[in-house]
């Protein structure tokens, strides 16, 4: 069983008391406990089972404007004492930083509403095994599939965040995740693809057979790929790639990147950065949402933020420290976005596919090719050549490149948004990017 709030609270207050006793002017502590159980299958038989049970503690101590932090997994009182002692000694010799402080008391979350983020259902390993058997049976029904690997993970967590200004809050969360990776082979090639489902509640997880079937289908269609020539072409991004683009945008508007001046979106508030049909929203209070939260990692209340309105940048993601540097109030985004999404567009997926007589549909990118300082983007890609709305043949060993500043202004979104993950996007088209191939 995951440790209860009382246990975590008692550890947190022990830490705060100790820090105060040593002379810390302020302190903040997070105590968490997490239990996770995973079963792995390969080629229809059990491959591994893994259980983890972990406590984690992190403490920040302040002496005026001096601050330092420690973290540990060892919660024995004796160890905590040694660590806080070390932390406070370090604080004393760390230089002052005028922006260091606990969050503004008025911004702290006052109440915790239930977002239904915890499902206490225990999915016994035998049931996980049954699920994975069904999944792999379905995934391997086509004889071009030569390898299947799948897993089911159940996680239960609880945490407390407390600070010396009297904030003390925390709650339980759960997640259930199933995934399947399949490998297909024909005379020309071997290809891999995947499908997964991750939810707060067990009953919302995708059907095992659907998951397996989809993974296999997505893999088989990649067989015998061709390399295309280098050209400018309009690119359609599968949802799983377009949501990554949204994450890159979120990193570029973090108050830390803005304050340091290392973002291509610095000083762009109230300016057009996306096509004017685009709206981006970050909503923390979605019931059962994978990214939902009552407060951020500093205890600051988080409300829904409109980040992009009709293509115009309206907000950064602000935490206390960087907010002070920028003269902005924290908007409860220490730790990043919550449930981030593009509002859906007004063209159907089918119409988007047919918009150009020839386009490239990207299902996977590899490499770390996003430069958030310059906005330059260049990644390896895999996908399909689309002609007249139909997949013609699979394509690989190509790169796609552009600059976010131009790419964002040329985005067209389909109307197929679904709330599956913490970051969600409809299918996306960007015209005029460069493909490098033969």
């Amino acid at each position: 069983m995951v440790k209860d709030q009382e246990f975590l609270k008692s550890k947190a207050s022990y830490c705060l008391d100790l820090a105060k006793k040593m002379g810390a002017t302020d302190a903040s502590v997070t105590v968490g406990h997490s239990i996770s159980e995973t079963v792995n299958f390969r080629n229809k038989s059990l491959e591994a089972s893994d259980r983890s049970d972990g406590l984690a503690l992190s403490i920040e101590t302040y002496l005026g404007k001096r601050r330092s932090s420690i973290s540990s997994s060892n919660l024995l009182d004796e160890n905590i004492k040694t660590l806080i002692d070390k932390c406070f000694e370090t604080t004393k010799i760390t230089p002052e930083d005028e922006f260091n402080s606990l969050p503004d008391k008025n911004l702290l979350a006052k109440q915790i509403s239930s977002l239904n983020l915890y499902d206490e259902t225990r999915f016994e390993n035998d049931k996980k095994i049954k699920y994975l058997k069904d999944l792999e049976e379905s995934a391997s029904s086509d004889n071009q599939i030569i390898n299947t690997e799948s897993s089911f993970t159940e996680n239960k967590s609880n945490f407390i965040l407390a600070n010396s200004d009297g904030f003390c809050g925390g709650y339980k969360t759960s997640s259930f995740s199933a995934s399947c990776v399949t490998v297909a082979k024909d005379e020309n090639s071997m290809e891999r693809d995947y499908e997964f489902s991750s939810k707060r509640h067990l009953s919302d997880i995708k059907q095992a057979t659907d998951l397996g079937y989809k993974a296999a289908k997505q893999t088989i269609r990649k067989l015998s790929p061709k390399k295309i020539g280098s050209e400018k072409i309009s690119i359609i991004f599968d949802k799983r790639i377009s949501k990554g683009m949204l994450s890159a945008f979120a990193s570029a508007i973090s108050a830390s990147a803005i304050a340091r001046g290392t973002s291509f979106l610095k000083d762009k508030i109230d300016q057009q950065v996306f096509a004017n049909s685009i709206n981006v929203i970050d909503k923390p209070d979605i019931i059962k949402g994978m990214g939902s939260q009552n407060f951020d990692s500093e205890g600051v209340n988080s409300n829904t933020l409109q980040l992009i309105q009709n293509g115009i940048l309206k907000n950064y993601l602000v935490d206390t420290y960087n907010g002070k540097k920028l003269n902005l109030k924290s908007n409860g985004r220490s730790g990043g976005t919550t449930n981030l999404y593009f509002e859906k567009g007004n063209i159907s997926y089918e119409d988007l596919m047919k918009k150009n007589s020839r386009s490239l549909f990207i299902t996977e990118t590899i490499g770390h090719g996003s430069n958030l300082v310059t906005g330059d983007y260049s990644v390896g890609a895999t996908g399909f050549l689309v002609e007249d709305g139909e997949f013609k043949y699979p394509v690989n060993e190509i790169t796609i490149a552009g600059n976010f500043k131009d790419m964002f202004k040329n985005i067209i979104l389909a109307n197929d948004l679904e709330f599956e993950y913490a970051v969600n996007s409809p299918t996306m088209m960007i015209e005029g990017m460069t493909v490098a191939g033969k």
Partner: protein
Amino acid sequence: MSNFFNKSDLTRQDADKIVSETLNNCDDGELYLEESKSESILLDDNKIKSSNYSSDLGFGFRAISNEVVAYSYSNEISKDSLKNSSENLKSTLKSIKGIYNHEIQKSNKKFYEDINPIEQKTLDSKLEVLNKVNDFLRKKDGSVKQVTASFAGEQKSIEIIRSGGEVLTDVRPLIRFNVSVMLEKNGRKETGVYGIGGRQSYDDYLKNDNWKNVCEEAFRIASVNLESKPAPAGEMKVVLGPGWPAILIHEAIGHGLEGDFNRKKTSAFHDLMGEKVASEGVTIVDDGTIDNRRGSLTIDDEGTPTERTVLIENGILKNFMQDRHNARLMNTRSTGSGRRENYRHIVLPRMRNTMMLSGNQTQDEMIKSVDKGIFAVSFGGGQVDITSGKFVFNCTEAYEINNGKIGSPIKGATLIGDGPSILKEVSMVGNDMMLDPGIGTCGKAGQGVPVGVAQPSILIDKMTVGGTKL
């Protein structure tokens, strides 16, 4: 050396007994105990932004029967906790048979000292270096708009207890010093990053004001990029400089030669053993035994002494990298490549220091031989799809080559290639093999481990460059 038994109700005898009882009828398994102490100190935006110390203690208990691995970890070292784990393992492995039948050789050779780098330099003197870095760079040039510098240090102590009471231990120091600088000129911003590190004390790397060299290099890379033009798009010849560009070898070849992917036949290399996979003259080794290197290990995380494993010899595929589990199932021996990020993770076969050895040509000859292509000197990172064999890596410093001469610098671009065939495109191997500066971290299945790479300059006849200029 950590004593894992002096602060708990668990005695070594109890642990031995539980381990032997649990693993009695298994094919393999062990109790892995780990204590790590780490620090990170960061200067950013003219200030000491954070100073963090972390200590972590825990165990991972593994039991293997045939192909099935059961694993349980906890950060509470106690009799109850270990018994709980033991019950978990027993409940997974219901039908059991066999024993581990591959002898592991012993070695007393150590590749680094039992030091705690964190304790060997005072916090004050670390802060002093970081502040000097900041002042030095900001005074150096008016275009310097941002400076980030950091120290990261760690001491990890591990103990492995096998069924029958065999005990293996290791103490591993690791440090890294990193500088990143952002320049702004005529409205353009570019960054340059450089770092150094390995398994010695901070001061071993900072002798003779060596921090200045790190600053100069980061500044130089950023300056070059300020002048960069859009990179070309398409297939062309590529000359790679020596040292860190060997992440090409790591991504293109290394991952595909890890035992697990080949046992599962999901690697593009699984049926190529003994075949020609590279041009003649190309030899690649994975070596865990180089003194004080970031990727070196005295013993791996299963207790096997590391070694220098020849992967490709003169173009021919010779060996995969193995941990005990995959080696047993493939009826071969472990190459001392079993690694894990920490006690929370299972062991996987991983790289250590992956190196292409020197040939006898010069970088100059390579560049002169290219009519149109690029010369790539520094890289950010890479990734591979081991099944299709396609891999990428991102240039952070590169130049055009026109008619045998190095031309203008080009913007960061991704290079893409095909692992099993790229080494056949290597037409010249330089005589200038160099190790990287000690900054690599390899990610696999969510686990990061420190690694090294090395190579001489090489000429690749055909690779796709992912720029924007057609």
